[in-house]
């Protein structure tokens, strides 16, 4: 049953722009989509390996800055009289570089912290995000610091035979985000179903047993961190080219908290969990905006999260899955009760 959530979401959200003209709602859906990609990426780590990245926004922010700077160009002087000048290039190249650089970053963080796991990883990721935020704030020559990088060009896609298509409208950006979200979902689904996914699950469920079977814990977790970081980096790139202005606030801790809430409420360790959680907590600000200030909304987020987890401790999607699983034996008893009935049926 819960397997149908993702295809259902795809059909519904592919059709939305055909009838929805409200630019405010379209904007909310695009941002929700971008954060849902982040939630999927966090779920790969938190849900499937049990490792909590509380600095996940770092990968999002790095992706945004890498992509924006690739498109805008920069000119920085380094120690020893070195100078790096970049003319500015295509946003698509920025998107690719964002994925590669955040992937490498995730790999390094994984290598650094997965020798000792648990709390250590949480601390390393939090500190890393704070360090990156400070760099973005203070390396003014590169990032403009608090003045923000502005006039970031929209994403451009080269269409074979048709030249470049620059995605200027909300509808175009909406479909771009939807496309990347679908790809991200497929990557996570594929990873989780593969032997690699089984290694992750094994480690999370019973580490000693997994080790005794030859599962390499450090390598498995590092690969998960690499893919997860790259996916968050892709989301950051989409964000930069859609919003077209970024400042060090893309590294805000509250973004990480939002991602964690989306994953935990939707159901960590389930493929559709981040989609459901992402939709609820992505669109909640839209519902709450008329009634309360953004700061006060956090109280409502917290309240709703607690209410969800009180009723469904593992999150919404696993609870739904349990519900349908419990129904199934009941329907089974309808089939042959007695040998006579079975004979009559055949």
């Amino acid at each position, binding site marked *: 049953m819960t397997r149908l959530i993702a295809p259902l979401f795809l059909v519904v959200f592919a059709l939305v722009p055909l009838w929805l003209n409200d630019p405010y709602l379209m904007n909310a859906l695009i941002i929700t989509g971008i954060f849902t990609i982040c939630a999927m990426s966090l779920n790969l780590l938190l849900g499937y390996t049990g490792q909590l990245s509380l600095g996940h926004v770092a990968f999002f922010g790095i992706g945004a800055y890498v992509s924006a700077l690739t498109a805008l160009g920069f000119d920085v002087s380094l120690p020893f009289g070195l100078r790096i000048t970049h003319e500015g290039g295509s946003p698509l190249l920025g998107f690719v570089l964002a994925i590669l650089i955040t992937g490498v970053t995730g790999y390094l963080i994984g290598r650094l912290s997965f020798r000792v796991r648990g709390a250590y990883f949480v601390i390393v990721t939090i500190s890393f995000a704070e360090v990156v935020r400070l760099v973005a704030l203070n390396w003014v020559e590169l990032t403009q610091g608090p003045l923000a990088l502005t006039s970031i060009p929209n994403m451009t896609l080269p269409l074979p035979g048709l030249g470049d298509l620059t995605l200027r409208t909300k509808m175009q950006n909406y479909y771009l985000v939807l496309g990347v979200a679908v790809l991200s979902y497929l990557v996570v689904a594929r*990873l989780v179903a593969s032997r690699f996914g089984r*290694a992750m699950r094994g480690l999370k*469920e*019973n580490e*000693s*047993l997994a080790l005794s079977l030859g599962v390499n814990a450090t390598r498995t977790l590092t690969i998960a961190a690499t893919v997860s970081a790259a996916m968050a980096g892709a989301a950051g790139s989409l964000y930069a080219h859609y919003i077209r202005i970024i400042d060090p606030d893309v590294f805000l801790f509250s973004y990480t908290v939002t991602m964690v809430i989306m994953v935990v409420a939707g159901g960590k360790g389930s493929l559709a969990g981040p989609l459901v959680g992402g939709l609820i907590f992505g669109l909640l600000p839209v519902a709450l905006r008329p009634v309360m200030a953004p700061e006060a909304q956090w109280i409502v987020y917290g309240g709703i999260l607690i209410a969800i987890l009180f009723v469904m401790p593992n999150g919404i999607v696993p609870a739904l899955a349990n519900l349908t699983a419990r129904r199934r034996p009941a329907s089974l008893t309808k089939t042959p009760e007695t040998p006579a009935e079975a004979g009559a049926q055949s």
Partner: protein
Amino acid sequence: MSAILSVEHVGMRFGGLTAIADLHFDVKPGEILSLIGPNGAGKTTAFNIMTGFLKPTTGRVLFEGRDLAKTKPNEIARLGLARTFQRTSVFANDTVLDNVLIGLQRFGEPSLLERLLPTPRALALEKETRARAEAIIDMVGLSARAHEKAGSLSYGEQRLVGFALALAIEPRMLLLDEPVSGMNASETQSFVGLVRKVRDAGVTILLVEHDMPMVMEVSDRIVCLNYGRLIAEGTPAEIRNDAAVIEAYLGKSAAKLDLKEAANA
């Protein structure tokens, strides 16, 4: 014949507690060797040292001539030395089939691309892995349970899942820590058959078990451990009549009693 596993004067201290004082024995290729001794004698600790979960305070372990001092548990598994755990150890939330599939980790290494994309080779590999898993489940007699969650199985069945997991890595040597505890008599009997079958397929077996009839029946050789020291070594017949072994298991008074009975007879 040179040993497949050599335990060379291994000692293990936990703070002030000496779990193993001086353990020294060889396992020959193809044999079923049992390591027996009362609770707390250090048997599980010895297994943890052999499989890299603990590093010995003194001495060393060689597997096929290779010193395991710096080898991690997952690397030791890949060398072909598998183990089961004394406490029932399965992936409780996964089906029996998925359990064994996790055990088949090292079977055919896919590239990163194959991890991400369902390439034909990746799919073929996946299918072959499944077939292997099913064969192993069939061998331990759990086919009917393949799609049930391992945690929902009976205690004896879970022990079989643990055994199937260890088999999945295709070991050359298998360490079994109290494999039949929790099994009833008929389950134990069929497990003995299974162990023999695995040994006949060329897998050396080191067994820790409290079920003495089972140990006597299945072992080629037995070593007995007490307070972290080897106190006897020999064939089942020799061990059965060894005074030190009887004393270790039944206590001093019992040993005296036995001797008195022998004198009276």
